[in-house]
């Protein structure tokens, strides 16, 4: 990792005084013991890169940005995680299979999760409008324009 890039990430993490507001507000941490945003910030500040970049934690974040919005020290953890994901992929670390699957799903169908037949049936029962199809073509183009799109095509 380039020293300037490492320093930019660590500099933000150093603002952290470990109050735990990120942890308290995190919807992922509530359901997944493997994700601990406050500890992640501490590891970043300490520069424990191996564990961070090869581990699953950075891929578990749902990017809801609650931690960034609530952080009293403006650490901006959501944004740091995006940067760490970029760094990890550039270093050749593949995201977990499930994450790639999710992204492939989005780029192909425009949806994060497939709409299952039971869901369609229940919507009909409730007299709800049929779901519009996502603009998959446009989404694909957008994804192709990103680094992740390049990663997907490299994987193929």
């Amino acid at each position: 990792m380039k020293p300037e890039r490492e320093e930019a990430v660590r500099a933000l993490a150093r603002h952290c005084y470990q109050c735990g507001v990120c942890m308290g507000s995190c919807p992922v941490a509530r359901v997944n013991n493997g994700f601990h945003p406050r500890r992640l910030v501490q590891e970043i500040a300490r520069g424990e890169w191996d564990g961070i970049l090869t581990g699953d934690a950075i891929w578990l974040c749902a990017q809801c940005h609650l931690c960034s919005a609530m952080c009293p020290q403006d650490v901006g953890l959501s944004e740091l995680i995006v940067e760490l994901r970029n760094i990890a992929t550039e270093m050749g670390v593949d995201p977990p299979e499930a994450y790639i699957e999710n992204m492939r799903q989005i780029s192909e169908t425009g949806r994060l999760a497939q709409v299952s037949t039971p869901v369609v049936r229940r919507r009909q029962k409730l007299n709800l409008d049929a779901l519009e199809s996502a603009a998959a073509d446009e989404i694909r183009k957008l994804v192709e324009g990103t680094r992740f799109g390049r990663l997907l095509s490299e994987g193929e």
Partner: protein
Amino acid sequence: MDSDELRIGVYVCHCGLNIAAVVDCPDVAKASADLPSVVVSRDYRYMCSDPGQEMIRKDIAEHKLNRVVVAACSPRMHEPTFRKCVENGGINPFLFEMANIREFVSWCHSQNPGEATEKAKDLVAMAVAKARYLQPLDPLMVPVTPTSLVIGGGVAGIHTALDQADMGYKVYLVERSSTIGGKMAALDKTFPTLDCSICILGPKMVEVSQHPNIELLTYSEVTKVEGYIGNFKATVHRYPRYIDEEKCNGCGECAVACPIEVLNTYEEGLGPRKAVHVQFPQAIPMRYTIDRDACIECYKCVDVCREQGRDAIDFSMQPVDVELDVGTITVATGFDLYDPSKVKSYGYGLYPNVVTAMEIERMVNAAGPTFGHVIRPSDRKEPKTVAFVTCVGSRDEKAQIYCSGFCCMYTLKNAVLLKDHFPEMDVYIIFMDMRTNFKGYEEFYRRARDMGIKFIRGHPDEIFGDPETGNLIISVEDLSVGKPLDLEVEMVVLSQAAIPSKGTKELSQVLTVSTDTSGFFMESHPKLKPVDAATDGIYFAGSAQGPKDIPYSVAQASAAASRSARVMSHDEWEIEPITAYIDPEKCISCGICVSKCPYGAITLEEGKPAEVTTAKCHGCGTCVADCPSSAITQQHFTDEQIMAQIEAALAEDPENKILGFLCNWCSYAGADLAGISRHQFPTNLRAIRVMCSGRVKREYVYEAFLKGAGMVMVSGCHFADCHYISGNYNAEKRIKPLFKILERAGITPERLRLEWFSAAEGEYYARITKEMAGLIGDLGKERITEENEKAKPFLERMMKRGDSS
């Protein structure tokens, strides 16, 4: 001593390693030896030490020195020390000049020793150049009025006033509210000894009202201050109470008769008061006030007061302005509490059972609106579980970045009181760090733990209200176990941050003193002049200068009383003779100086040259810069001296240099702060200190570009903050048109900068210096030289015009 031959001594200070670790001091001393008129130049570890000063005194005698230059720290630090030193050595103290090679060089260019050393040499050369033109001056003595003005009647103002009055000085104590007492009067108990607050403050308040030396002006505000140390003239605006303070005896029959009830702000809106009221039973003065916003003018109070035989009520009362002559001013305007409804996630204002620390303070008080019962606002039931949340609005980049200091302790105190009154109650304190760092405080924290108060380390990310039960669910990570927690409690108490009291900014402008980046009043030096304002004769006490608890406020109050007595105990006080004088031969009696002087110090009689009243002159130099016939001189900041500094600064490699004019009060202090804070930036800037940006002549800018300067910066205080009322406005009026004028002459207008920054904005100074250095780099030496060359005929013409008039 033969004054014809200049004999200058130069002394380069290492300041231990503060300077010497970066700047090659022996090399600077060596280079200084070659400067004109320098007969001796030395470097030494600590120039301010006794041996250092002795070295100067010895050299004055041995080498017959008649000018001394010390290159060391900021003149704002040690100029007085060395002036005294040369005076003891036998030469006039104003024949001394200082080069700031610590704050301006070693501390802010520590990564670049080579360039730093070169800059230090330049700064010494500039100081020597100025020293060649220094003139001996006699100190100016001004009379001192042994009277004090104290603004703010909280615990700090009360103690300052009492100390000063006991020392025999007459004191005017001005308080905005209808009673003195401040925040402390509303507290139930005080930490760490749990004294009843009003029981210990009340007697002091009574003492104020009975002291023969104290004149109390409540329901009043200071709206205007003129003058200077020993001789301030303050205007106090007195709001009408609509009740004659002389006739009212505080019997309170009017309030009994009054039919109007409004929320009592003293009780945090938890209880009522009448339209005619005193804030609390121990109010001083015990005089009633009519709240005309609430009053319906039924005049029942008038009738009942007449029946009492007093007839004190007067609805025709008008505000009056009172003028006071005082020698010193102490600002003790205290603090306000942060409004937690600004941060939605705390739930204050959304859920009734989230209350503030001040609200619980009034509830716990036996004389308060609930008679000591702690009740939930939603259903008036006594809560069985209460959680205190600290750092509400403190240590938060989105609110106040600082720690308010006393909240940990008042949270502990309130929690202990609850646990003491209601042992069955479950009391939680949710905290990030527990700060208990004074006498008896840590012991108090232990006492709280021993009582069974539950401590959870963490900070809530959100507080939700349950509409069914009125209970609150606090979402927080319990840091000690590292797990998110949903804690359900019946009531939440928020420990609000302390913020600058309302009107602080306005008062700072009335007094022309600075505020810091947090908005509190800024002291002259954070360690060695903690209660002095940068303006002589003005002092701070208590939370006006930053959040403080009671013991600390009282200590500061006594410090301010002592600092002001240091002045008031003298019949006369020495001030710097840096005043202006007008050459009657050159004066054309145009009267421009009369209109520019913010102090009315210049008078002009028809057919006669204008004249400066020296005692009224504050030494800003604005008249000097605006005089069309160059008839005015400011002593110790003469044209000759400044021109010599410009020449020396730009002697070598001028295209790469920024010539900066920094006003003494804000910009110079801000640049000092950049060094003190160890901000790092390029070395291009060469600073010339003037008392006010209003002193900077257009000719200085022309001369700088003529001499090849890469950039010129003129800087001063923010508008309305000018130490000399209007100097920076005049500077702007004079310098701003230069952008167009210079552009027409062929100079990129961005090469001139007009900047306003305060003594607190060191980081800003570092940033703009970087920007300016960047521009010099972008334009390149060739382009700058070319532009200067092109503008030369125009600049020479302008300079000539300045000379001939």
